[in-house]
């Protein structure tokens, strides 16, 4: 019987290899070397790319529909008020080295994930409260995981958890995803080979993935990456800047893909830290809602999107991008550019224009600096545009670019800054990922971190709403709470949201079945379904 099963698996392997594009190789660039191949430790872009291409997950967020879909699990159920999740697993799956997959592997992965000694960034999302995570393997393909406290949106978090083998001698290199790491030349390239045991099949029963291997070149220089794409040496660039995008679109429109607004946002905030080394009158400006709203209304977001991002961005309304289909509060619109209204708001707070200079009720000329990280020309341009916009209401803005460590030092330790312009790269659709930003006690509550008690009534309300949404298993109710958080953020503007950037990518015509999306990874989210044109595959 054992012999027969070996023969059968051999036949399956041979036939699937024949259906795959023999010798085909997908090529693209990583901008840095992956820091780890351990999927539980992935935190940088390159490591996350490897995890996505090689890791098998229980559930996957479909990047196109944003729905949660079964992968290694066929079914799942959340019980016990959001503390427990039970997975039914697929039968007969194997890791890339042939080791059989079972519920024991999921239990092992969860234990590793939650091991405090490992410091897994992915595991942090699951840390809901004090206590141990319990795993119970009921049978070979059924596992129940119980967390010490309820976790809202628990099932979606498993999109990031690549299951590792408990028994394989290859440890984390044995994978359940479409590819496995076959070669790694440090600092130069990584080659992934097709996983012969990958479980997914196309609608007509052909084994996936179609492409035999993936070649990842480490390439930091974006000019070089663009040149390689136009010369046909690589097949796509997952994310490109607006400038490169326009140049490419002019050369070959078919290659340039704008998937619309992404989850990423650019925002500015004022320093509202009580102990910050700033003059008292400036602290009064920055803590005034009218002042923040006035500054917000005096900024022309439309121009910013059109000029700085060449039209590949959209004025932002709040903390959630419209790309986030479920959680975005559609009632909110970006603050319009209205300098008259801005001046009216300022007048309410005792500001007045004197000879084209805005002064507060004590006569101080309104002047402040905004810091941003040097080397990011988009942010520098945004700040320069704000400089001209704010001069329209008599405010003098000084733009200061700092190296990143100095900037972080100022915004997290010394609080010696007045306003800061930075971006938020968002991978997670769920509001729980933003808990650390919105809770007033959090040290990443940027405008006023680590508050002992909420400094304002609206911050107390945001705390309450964020905690309520995090502990409520009902998605509809959670959405209600989070909609209100977005409304408060829109009204109070602790962050002045400026633009949401579009997801821009470049893909060679040789790659088929590509549907770039707004969510990461924009181009290769369906890597197992991608194929190369036969002529191209042959030439490679």
């Amino acid at each position, binding site marked *: 019987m054992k012999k027969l099963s070996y023969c059968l698996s051999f036949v399956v392997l041979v036939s699937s290899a024949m259906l795959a594009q023999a010798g085909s190789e997908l090529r693209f660039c990583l901008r840095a070397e992956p820091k780890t191949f351990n999927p539980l430790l992935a935190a940088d872009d390159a490591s996350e790319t490897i995890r996505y291409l090689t890791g098998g997950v229980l559930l996957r967020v479909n990047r196109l529909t944003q729905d949660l879909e079964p992968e290694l699990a066929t079914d799942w159920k959340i019980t016990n008020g959001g503390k427990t999740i039970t997975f039914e697993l697929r039968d007969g799956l194997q890791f890339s080295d042939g080791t059989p997959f079972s519920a024991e592997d999921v239990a092992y992965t969860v234990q590793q994930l939650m091991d405090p000694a490992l410091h897994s960034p992915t595991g942090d999302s699951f840390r809901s409260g004090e206590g141990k995570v319990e795993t119970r393997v009921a049978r070979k393909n059924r596992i129940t995981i119980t967390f010490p406290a309820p976790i809202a949106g628990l099932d979606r978090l498993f999109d990031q958890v690549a299951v590792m083998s408990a028994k394989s001698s290859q440890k984390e290199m044995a994978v359940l995803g479409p590819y496995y790491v076959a070669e790694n030349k440090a600092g130069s390239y990584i080659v992934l080979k097709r996983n012969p045991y990958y479980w997914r099949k196309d609608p007509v029963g052909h084994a996936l993935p179609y492409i035999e291997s993936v070649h990842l070149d480490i390439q930091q220089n974006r000019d070089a990456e663009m040149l390689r794409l136009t010369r046909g040496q690589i097949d796509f660039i997952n994310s490109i800047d607006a400038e*490169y995008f326009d140049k490419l679109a002019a050369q070959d429109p078919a290659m340039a893909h704008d998937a619309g607004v992404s989850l990423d946002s650019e925002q500015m905030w004022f320093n509202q830290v009580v102990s910050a080394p700033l003059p008292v009158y400036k602290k009064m400006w920055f803590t005034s809602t009218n002042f923040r709203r006035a500054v917000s209304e005096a900024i022309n977001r439309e121009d910013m999107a059109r000029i*700085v991002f060449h039209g590949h961005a959209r004025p932002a309304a709040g903390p959630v991008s419209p790309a986030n289909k479920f959680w975005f509060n559609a009632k909110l619109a970006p603050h319009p550019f209205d300098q008259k209204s801005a001046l009216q708001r300022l007048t309410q707070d005792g500001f007045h224009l004197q000879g084209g200079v805005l002064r507060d009720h004590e006569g101080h000329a309104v002047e402040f600096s905004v810091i941003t990280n040097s080397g990011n*020309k988009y942010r520098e341009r945004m700040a320069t545009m704000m400089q*001209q916009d704010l001069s329209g209401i008599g405010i003098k803005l000084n733009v*200061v670019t700092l*190296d990143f460590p100095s900037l972080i030092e100022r915004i997290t330790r010394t609080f010696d800054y007045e306003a800061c312009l930075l971006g938020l790269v968002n991978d997670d659709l769920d509001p729980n990922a933003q808990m650390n930003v919105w809770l007033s006690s959090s040290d990443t509550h940027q405008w006023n971190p680590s508050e002992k008690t909420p400094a304002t009534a609206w911050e107390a309300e945001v705390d309450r709403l964020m905690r309520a949404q995090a502990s409520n298993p009902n998605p509809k109710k959670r959405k209600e709470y989070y909609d209100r958080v977005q409304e408060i953020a829109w009204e109070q503007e602790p962050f002045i949201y400026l633009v949401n950037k579009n997801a821009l990518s470049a893909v060679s015509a040789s790659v088929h079945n590509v549907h770039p999306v707004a969510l990461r990874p924009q181009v290769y989210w369906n890597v197992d379904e991608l194929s190369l044109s036969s002529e191209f595959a042959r030439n490679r």
Partner: protein
Amino acid sequence: MKYARIVAIAFLVAVSLGCLLADYIAPASYARQFREEPNAAPSRQHLLGTDDLGRDRFSRVLYGTRVSLLLAPAAALLSSLLAALIGGIAGFAGGWLERLVMAGTDLFLSLPWLFLLITVRALLPLNVSPLVSVAITFALLGCLGWAGAARVICADARSLAHSDFVLLARASGSDGFRLLWRHLLPNLKPVLYAQFWISVPVFILTEANLGILGLGVAEPLPSWGSLLREMESFSTVSGQPWQFVPLILFIVVVSSFHVVLSKEELPA
């Protein structure tokens, strides 16, 4: 060589005059954003087109040249004076003082300049106007750029301190500050001039490097560094050759300084 020098001097004079008269020549303010015309090609209204934010590039080149050409010599003057003071006293005094000062100078020279500048720049107050920021940037360059020159001046001062005319001056009762001021410093002038002229293009280049890193002169004030930043992605500028004008101007000005300098370096 003489002809080349005349051309170089004429060019530097023309450029200096052009940027000094920028207020009258420039068709628009360097900061004004013509938002309907970003990245425009050269036209009658915008001779060198506009930059990413729609600012008139010709005006920015004029003002940027003014900033770099005025402040680089000022920074060079500061560093040369510091070098004269430190190197001159060390060379004149000799002995343990010279060894101590030169050890300090060597230590200063071994510091990684760029990182030092980035660090010092990060520690400066944030709320300063672009004009003050540019002054600070060049003052920093001047304060940090004296060490190399000080070594050269120290060596020269040491040999002068043992020369016949200094011995004669000593024998005539001249000593201390008078000896240094009346006899030594006038004889150090040629080497000081040379050090000054060498420093000017070096500081222009350093500011350009800082500008490329986004750590030079603050927006919206232009400088050669910030103008050169436009070219950091070659593929996006290759189709717009007029964007190379600041680079060409920069190269020609620095080369002109070197041509002029080659004469200054000749023994007095």
